[in-house]
């Protein structure tokens, strides 16, 4: 019997200890200004640059910035969801202090601002005053520094500020001037831009180009544009509303069935597919970089960050590429905000780092070193951006072309289920391109599938 009780006492002691250790995680320790701090950052792609992180660590010897580069879908589609879900269940602090959120995923995040620290309630400390970031700036104070439509992508639907913009995607046309010339088209960039004031004219130009291709080339799907599907996204992002309308609520109002912009973008894309100008090479598949090199297509609708990708994948085509203005003018694809998850332990330190990292001076550095376009308004007047010419793109004034386009854009309300809807319409256009369905049948099937999708019907 005594033995039994002894066992029980041990058990009680261990469970008490376990309980204590669980509780102690929740208690925030008081810190002095110079206490060592480790800021954990979840990132993807080129969002966080080592050079700048090193600079910040040199300015603040007590701060360590531990950043991990994930696959975009892993960090935005999965990890951040499980992280916030766990935080809401346990209310336990921990996990990342900064997470990069991409605009394709931000519809859900803007509808769920409780997953993030409201940056309106933060204020910069005096730690970066010497580096040009004033003390006492809240999220609202920073707004005026950024492109308005870019800023809006980090604003929760309850008007809280959940993220600060990093670089801008922008969208213009990257084209092969040598192939244009060979096809008897104008090859000089202003003249090329004038070929397509509208998307219809863009398709017409494509037809003229394709007419000059040989039968052998056509058999291997040589054509004008890499993937006609990209026209759909580009056209939608030139408008002000997509699948949702902002009606002042968190969820917004679903208008994908009635918004004429969607049918218009769909029809134009189908027209491009039917006219044979698409090489049907989906972006980021195995055939895509091959096509960049061997001239399978002459045109890519390219966000600013993609120019770096083209350089890396097709270095031998240097000087053959050029940049022209996108039809209609102004376009966007991609864009990221840095956010502070609600579960972060070092919110103040994270905010101080973020406001420094995304200030005009640092964004300018990132543009010069890595070709990422700044989201800060002041940078567009800086000669380093405004006068930037890229030798890979035949010395095109990349800075001016992208800069002008970015200033034309307006904010778009994304809505909770934007990603699921985007995927459904993308698949629908894919079926038309693969000739599995007619445009009308595929449109009907897409709407039918969406009307049954649980993301839309469950009212979340």
């Amino acid at each position: 019997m005594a033995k039994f009780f002894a066992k029980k006492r041990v058990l009680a002691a261990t469970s008490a200890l376990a309980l204590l250790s669980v509780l102690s995680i929740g208690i925030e320790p008081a810190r002095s200004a110079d206490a060592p701090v480790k800021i954990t950052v979840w990132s993807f792609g080129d969002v966080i640059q080592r050079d700048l992180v090193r600079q910040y660590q040199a300015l603040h010897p007590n701060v360590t910035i531990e950043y991990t580069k994930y696959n975009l879908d892993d960090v935005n589609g999965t990890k951040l969801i499980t992280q916030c879900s766990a935080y809401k269940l346990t209310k336990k602090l921990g996990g990342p202090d900064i997470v990069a959120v991409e605009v394709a995923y931000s519809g859900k995040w803007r509808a769920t601002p409780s997953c993030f620290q409201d940056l309106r309630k933060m204020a910069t400390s005096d730690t970066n005053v010497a580096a040009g970031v004033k003390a006492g700036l809240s999220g609202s104070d920073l707004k005026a520094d950024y492109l308005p439509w870019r800023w809006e992508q980090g604003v929760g639907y309850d008007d809280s500020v959940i993220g600060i913009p990093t670089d801008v995607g922008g969208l213009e046309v990257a084209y092969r001037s040598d192939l244009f010339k060979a096809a008897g088209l104008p090859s000089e960039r202003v003249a090329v831009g004038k070929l397509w004031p509208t998307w219809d004219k863009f398709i017409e130009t494509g037809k003229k180009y394709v007419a000059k291709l040989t039968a052998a080339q056509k058999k291997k799907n040589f054509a004008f544009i890499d993937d006609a599907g990209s026209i759909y996204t580009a056209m939608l992002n030139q408008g002000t509303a997509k699948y949702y309308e902002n009606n002042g609520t968190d969820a917004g109002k679903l208008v994908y069935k009635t918004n004429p912009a969607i049918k218009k973008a769909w029809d134009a894309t189908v027209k491009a597919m039917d006219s044979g100008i698409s090489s049907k090479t989906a972006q980021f598949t195995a055939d895509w970089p091959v096509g960049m090199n061997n001239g399978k297509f002459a045109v890519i609708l390219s966000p600013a960050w993609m120019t770096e990708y083209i350089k890396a994948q097709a270095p031998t085509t240097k000087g053959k590429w050029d940049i022209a203005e996108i039809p209609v003018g102004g376009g966007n694809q991609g864009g990221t905000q840095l956010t502070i998850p609600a579960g972060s332990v070092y919110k103040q330190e994270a905010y101080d780092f973020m406001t420094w990292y995304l200030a005009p001076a640092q964004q300018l550095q990132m543009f010069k070193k890595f070709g990422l376009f700044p989201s800060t308004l002041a940078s567009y007047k800086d000669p380093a951006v405004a006068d930037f010419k890229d030798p890979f793109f035949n010395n095109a004034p990349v800075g001016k072309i992208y800069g002008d386009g970015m200033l034309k854009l307006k904010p778009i309300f994304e809505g909770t289920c934007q990603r699921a809807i985007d995927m459904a319409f993308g698949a629908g256009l894919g079926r038309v391109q693969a000739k599995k369905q007619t445009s009308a049948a595929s449109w009907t099937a897409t709407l039918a599938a969406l009307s049954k999708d649980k993301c839309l019907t469950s009212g979340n």
Partner: protein
Amino acid sequence: MTAIDDSTKPSGLSRQGSKGGRRKPAPSPWRAKKIQSDKNPGGLASLNGKWGYLFTAPFFVMFLIFGLAPIVYSTVIAFFNWDPIGDIEFIGLKNFEDLLADERFWLALGNTMEIWVLATFPALIGSIGLAAILRNKFLRGATAWRTVLLVPNITSVIAVAIVFGQLFGRDFGMINNVIELFGFPRVDFIEDSFASHVAIATMITWRWMGYNALIFLASMLAIPDELYESASLDGASAWQQFRYVTLPGLRNTITFVLIVGTIGGLQVFAEPLTLGGGLSGGSSRQFSTLTLFLYEQAFASYQWGYAAAVGILITFIVLIVSAINFAITRRLADENTR
């Protein structure tokens, strides 16, 4: 305990030793130990049962945290409209009702079964064949070959997907170049439903065939040589030896490989995800599998309850298919030995 019991039976060695006369076999070391432990009830041996629990505890703790807890959690949330970061509402069996009426689910089930058949049966024959080759006594560098067989299995799925993506490319892929060389039209391994299943099945086969071959090899090596010797004395050809000695000896292993293959094959995920087309598995969901559908519902539509319901149905489907497999392989094997 089993080791001690075994020692009381005459072992092969002691039988050989007793060939000359009927000498009493020397007591085996196991026996000696047993006697000793009987005399000495203290020490480690007396604790045998309890220590066993301690040593196996890490597995059970891990299983509780990473195995049982998620199973319980997902079973519970399957009865809810469960947005991971939003509202939660109890809806009873509605998720299951909706799921059974959801054509995307049935399509994914059909795709999964087709991929499973394509990936399982040719690979089964292939791996038994490979094992038969490796069993050959005249094969040089047998260990090296066996190691090579495992390489596909330890290669990252993503790396495999990238390489196969290049091979299966529609316009510049090597496989299509070969197909064209023989005068056939190029195949779109992503848009065409059956071709995409073949592509995925090829990736799975490439990954698991060598691994299964090693399992079959181990099983083949356990078949006593005497059986082959007497078979060849009876004039059996190499094929007849394989058919009537090797195959019946592999009966249990075939059942094992098939069931493990079923559990894995019905959960195929990384290959269709990386083939292209994103979470929906192609423009007409032509290679959307059950787990890919589950993942799409959980992380593109934020329907964790619905996704959990898919998971539970996958469990039942795996159980049913495994049971059918088990029954069929048993019956086939029985016919073999008859």
